[in-house]
Each structure stands twice: as structure tokens, then as C-alpha cells.
């Protein structure tokens, strides 16, 4: 076999493993990223959708944030304007977390209708620019 052919085989092997790794990586660790409306729709169509790891992107409903510092529990509601869900999160929220900020909540929707979050990210579009004073 010519060196060029052998090299082509090696190249195919590398490209193939990169592709395989990406495909199985997504399968094993990828998560749905949904809005509350999409989540509600999926749950109503498919009841097995509970208890599945996912991310939900939405806005915090102003005035719903309850912080219990002693137990480090954070409760708030998120909404996309039409559907809203209560969220419970144990842990430290990021500095940028306030009510009315956009968040990405990572966790599971359980049968009690509450999203039990394992992580909360404050997704502030203007994070590195001053927030205009209201």
C-alpha cells in the first residue's frame, strides 16, 4: 500500500472518531433547551417528559424571588410571557441574578410541577455594560 493511501486511512480514522465522539457526546450529555411554553406543550403531549434533565431559558417574574440564606434555598418563578413555572434551587446564585433578569435554569421538572434546578445562570445580554437606570 502506498503511503498516501495509508495516510488517507489514518485521516478517515481521525475524522471518523471526531464525528463519533461528537455524535455520542450529544446523545449522552446533550440536553433540551426549552422555553416554558415549549416545556408545557411537551409535557402535555408526552407525560414521560418529567424528570428529564433539561435547560429552560426564561425571564424571572419580578417580585417572586425568595432567598433563604440560612438554608441557601432560592425560590422564584420564571416565565416567557405565556407560561410560568416555579423554580426551586439549592445553592448560591450568580452575582448577576436579580428578579427580572433573564436566566437559564438547568434541572428537572418534577411531578409536583416545580422545576428543581441544579444550576441557575443569569443570562444578562448587557452584562458588561451598565444597566440603564430605570
Amino acid at each position, binding site marked *: 500500500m502506498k503511503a498516501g493511501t495509508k495516510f488517507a486511512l489514518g485521516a478517515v480514522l*481521525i475524522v471518523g472518531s471526531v464525528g463519533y465522539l461528537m455524535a455520542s*457526546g450529544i446523545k*449522552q450529555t446533550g440536553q*433540551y433547551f426549552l422555553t416554558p411554553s415549549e416545556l408545557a406543550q411537551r409535557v402535555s403531549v408526552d407525560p414521560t417528559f418529567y424528570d428529564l434533565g433539561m435547560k429552560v431559558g426564561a425571564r424571572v417574574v419580578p417580585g417572586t424571588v425568595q432567598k433563604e*440564606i*440560612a438554608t441557601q434555598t432560592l425560590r422564584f418563578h420564571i416565565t416567557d410571557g405565556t407560561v410560568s413555572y416555579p423554580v426551586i434551587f439549592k445553592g*448560591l446564585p450568580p452575582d448577576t441574578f436579580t428578579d427580572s433578569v433573564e436566566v437559564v435554569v438547568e434541572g428537572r421538572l418534577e411531578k409536583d410541577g416545580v422545576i428543581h434546578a441544579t444550576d441557575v445562570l443569569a443570562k444578562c445580554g448587557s452584562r458588561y455594560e451598565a444597566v440603564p437606570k430605570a
Partner: protein
Amino acid sequence: MTLLGYFSLWLALVVGLWGAITGFVGGAQGRADLQQSARHATFALFGALLIAVISLEVAIFRHDFSVQYVASRTSRNLPTFYLWSALYSGQEGSLLFWAAVLSLFAALTQLLTGGRYRVYLPYVAAVTSLVASFFVSVMLFAANPFKRLAFTPMDGQGMNPQLQNPGMVFHPPMLYLGYISITIPFAFAIAALLTKKLDTEWMVAVRKWTIVSWLFLSIGLLIGMWWAYVELGWGGYWAWDPVENAALLPWLVMTAYLHSVMIQEKRGMLKKWNLALILGAWVLSIFGTFLTRSGVIASVHSFTESPVGYYFLFFLVAATAATAVLYVTRLPLLQAEATLESMVSREASFLFNNLLLIGLAFSVLWGTLFPIISEAVVGVKITYGPPTFNFVNIPLGLTLLLMTGIGPLIAWRRASTANLRRQFAVPVTVGVFALLILLVGGMRDGWALGAFSLGAFVVGTVVQEFARGARARNRQYGEALPLAVLQLLSRNRRRYGGYIVHIGIVLLFVGFAGMAFKTETEATLRPGESAELRARDGHMYTFTHLGISQYNALNRQVTAALLDVRRDGKEIGRLRTEKRQHVDALGNRTFEPSTEVGIMSGLRVDLYVVLAGLVNGTEQAVFRFTINPLVWWVWFGGFVLVIGGLIVLWPGGAPVALKGSRASHVQAGYAVKLEAER
């Protein structure tokens, strides 16, 4: 002043377009007068943009809050240090900074490139002027840094506290310098395509520039990682955030290029590939800028969503299409002068290294765009988060580490079995030995074992190379060994500087692997109470809450907690962590409170403490304690990598021997003399 700045932007646009037109036309028609004009246009462009930068800085330092940019990014009580970085801390200013630096590089290229490479210069002037004009036009039509407010506020809104960190003063310019300097090799590549002078000479002309941009990208990435670690408080330094990825992409491609260009120089192969890498690195740098500024993908870095994104998207698409067409039409001129002779050769190992780097780059690009792609194709967004990135990239990264060791050991063209045995015996033994020690020591994490033993293997190859070279000099010239090592470095900077970069990479991997052994706990403590946390190496750390102090500083109210730290019962020091509430000159609160992490850094572990908050305003405080093993080695490895890069970059040293018809001319040495590190 702002009027002057605004006027000079218009001047820059006119001059830039003039430079683009005269450069292209002058080059195509061979008209010396137009070529001269294009050259002068790059100087004028730099002058105009320099005036614009000075105007903006003057407005910032004078606290001229009638300028929107100044009012929304700074305040009267902002420390002077950060008034400098305010220039590039927002959208408009960073565009100006970008354009100005590009024009500086463009002017330097015209001044410093001499001799035979001058044929490319009109086109280089044209391309750099065109790119700079684009940035200027974005400022003029979508993001004017000199825009005035209808009224003059008493005080500005201040700088985001997270940007008030020394890392943020240096991270953006370093990264920008890396991004921007890719434009110079890109401009030469376009010039080579247009002039059809596609032999290896243009690559020699831009060799230093490619290393400059690789080095600045490296420094920018490292400082960015350090900033994320000390400032953001989540306990890590890399989160596979889209904009981190966007900076990593050109770095990976440039790294591939720096290796594969050697094959072209030595053997006249891979011409198409190398050209594509340079073009691709530049396109990725513009893509990264687009990602950062458009808000297309949610990211911690994103600027406010703005029409600027559309400009960049248009520019990205247009530039990519034009480049691709030009490249394809010239493909027949890019014939290899040699073929691959054996799989067991330096060439083949470099090719595999290139494939891995590009595969890694592709997986990072794919992962970054995946939420968009999956939404477009299957109608639902699927995340491609850090777990997925790690799943894909850790195996690829470790294979690459293996290649880092193998590459330098294999001979060019075709390696014999005897040669292989001679080269591999010691390093492989070192690697296996390291693996056994770690296994006996009780380490069971597969990836970490891989990283450490492959790292030992690579260190073995480098030490062997240095030892052999030094011994040869010792025999030949009778130099003492330390002198011989220094001579090796100075005589063959590219090779031995490159080996030092490899050592830096190994140390980085050691640091990355350390994160596999991270431990974490959270605790609510009253003064006098303690929390305990056991590190994975068996040591027990005890943190005792000593109390809270509150005071006012220049532009912030500080709540600080002091902790006593003990290892296995013995006091090793004190840690302090803060919550900062930033205020304006009148004492009104600005921004959300930010956290100052308390870090005690050591060779084995970093102790990392975050003050999360006080319970109902009492001294009872909530902390998060993290033990991050081996993080110090990331910064040290980065330092070594930069030193290695500087050695490669240092002017002088042995000339590059070129394969091909013109090889004899090149013995004169480098044509581009660049003192990048003044």
C-alpha cells in the same frame, strides 16, 4: 475633541477606501504611483485613527459625560487605571481600538517588509485598508463612539465591577492583538493569490507575524482564564463559553499552521492546506468578533444586541465568499513538489497533528453553533454544554498530547526501525514509569492518568532532544553543558523554543487534569465556627470564620469576611473574601453586588473561598469552599509557553532553509524584522 475624533473617523474611511482602491488597481496594473499612494494611505489611516483614539481617551479622562460612551462606561470615581481600559471596555470603543491597532500593524508591515517581498505590498496595503475601512464604517453607521447625549449627566454610570480587575485591563488588548495580527498573514495570502506568486516565499515573509498572533492569542486566552478564575467566583477558568471558543478556534488553526508550514518549507508539500489554514484562521477571527458583538448566541461576554451584528454577518459572508472563490481559482497553481514517502515520518506525524487540531477546532465550532443548528434542523434547541465539550475534546486533546511527543522524535521522509528504537526508548520508559508510580500511588482517574503519563513522555522527548544537542555541541566545540544548552537555544530558536512551548503545553495539561480532583463544600458559619474540607491528597483543611468588617472604599462599599485557614490542624494563613457594592460619587448604588474571591494558591492546591452573603445582616455568613488541585500549574505552564514563544520570535537565529527553486536566495535571512515585544 469629540468633533475632531468623529471627523478623523470620516477621514479614516476615505483614506482607507482610497488605500484599498489604489492598492488593488496599482498592483494589478503595475503602476508605481498608485502603489506608492496605497502605501502612504496606510500611514495616513493610522494617523487618523490615532487621533480618534486620543480624542476618545481625552473625553474619558476629562469625564466628558456628554459623550454617550463615556457616560455609560465610566464615572467620576472610577480608578485611573480603569480609565485607560475604558477605551476598549464597550462595543464602540473596542471597535475603534481594533481599527487603530490594525492600522498600526498595516503601517508597520509597509515599513518593515523589504526586498523581494515588496511585490506583495500594494495588495497587502489594499487588504488591510479594506478591513480597517469596514471597522470604521461600522463605527460611523452603527456604533459611533463619539455619539453625544442630548443632555450632560452629572456623573457616568460607571464600569461594570467585574471589569474592574487588572486581568480585564490586559486580557482584551492581548486577545485583540492576536486576532488583529492574523490580518497581516491573511493579507499576504490574498496578495500571493492575486499575484500568483504562490511559492513559499510569502510564508517566510509573514513567519514572524504568524508567531506574533499565535503568541498574543495565547497570552489573551491565558489572561482571560485567569480573570475568569479570580473574578467570576465559580471556581474554574474555562467554561466552553461561545466567546471563549471563538478565541480558541483561531488559536487551534494557527497552531496547526505553525507546524504544517514546516513541511512546506522543508519538503514543498501541503501548499493548499497551509494557505487554507491562514485564510481560515482569519475568517474565524472575524467570526469570533461577530459572535461577540451580535448576541446571536447567549454568552457571558455578549455586548448589547445591536445592528452591529448584521454588519459583521454581511462582512463575514462577503469576505468568506470572496476568499473562497479566489482560493479555488488558484488551486491548479498549488502543486506539491513532493509526496508523502512513509507513514513513519515527520511529515506524516505533522499531518496527523494537523488533522487532530482541525478536528478539535471543528468540534468546538460545531458545539458552539449546535444550539442554532439543532433548532433549525429538528426544531428544538439542544444544548452542547461543558459535559459534551469535555466528552469530545478530552480524548482528542490527549491524542494531541501524544503527538506532541511523537512528532519531534520521528525523522523526516522515512524513519528506520533502528532510528525509532533509539529515539523512543527513553521517553517511553519515562512515560510508563510515571504511569506506574501514579497507579501505585492510588490514582484511578483514567483521563488524569493519561494526561500525567503522556505529559511525562513529552517531557522525556524534550529533555532527550536538549541533552543530545548539548552533548553534540560539547563534543564538537568543547562547550560546557549549560553554555551548550544556551547556544542550542540561540542558534536554533524555532526548534528549541518550540520544545519549550511543548513543555508549557504539558504543564497546562497537568493543571487541567488537576481539576478532576476538585472538592467543594458550602457552609453557613457564625464567627468562631469552622468548616472542614478534605482534599483528595488526604490533607484536611479547616476554615474558621473570624468575623465580618464593613467599610467604604473609593467607589464601593465593602463587606469583608476573614477566615483562619489550617491544614491538618496547623495554621497556614488567612483568607479574605469580599462582597462589593459599587456606588457612584453621590453614594447611590450601581450594579449588582459583586464577589471578590479569596484565593490561597500553592503548588499542590488552591484554596478558593467565596462569600455568598450574610444571614439577615448579622455576622453569620454563607461561604463556598473549593479546593482546586494544581491550578497554579496552569498559570506557570502558560508562562513557560509564552517564554518559548518569545524565544521563537526573537529576531536573528538561523535562516529558514527553503525547499524549492529559490532556496538559495532565502539564505539572506528574514525579510520581516519585527520587534513585537518592545
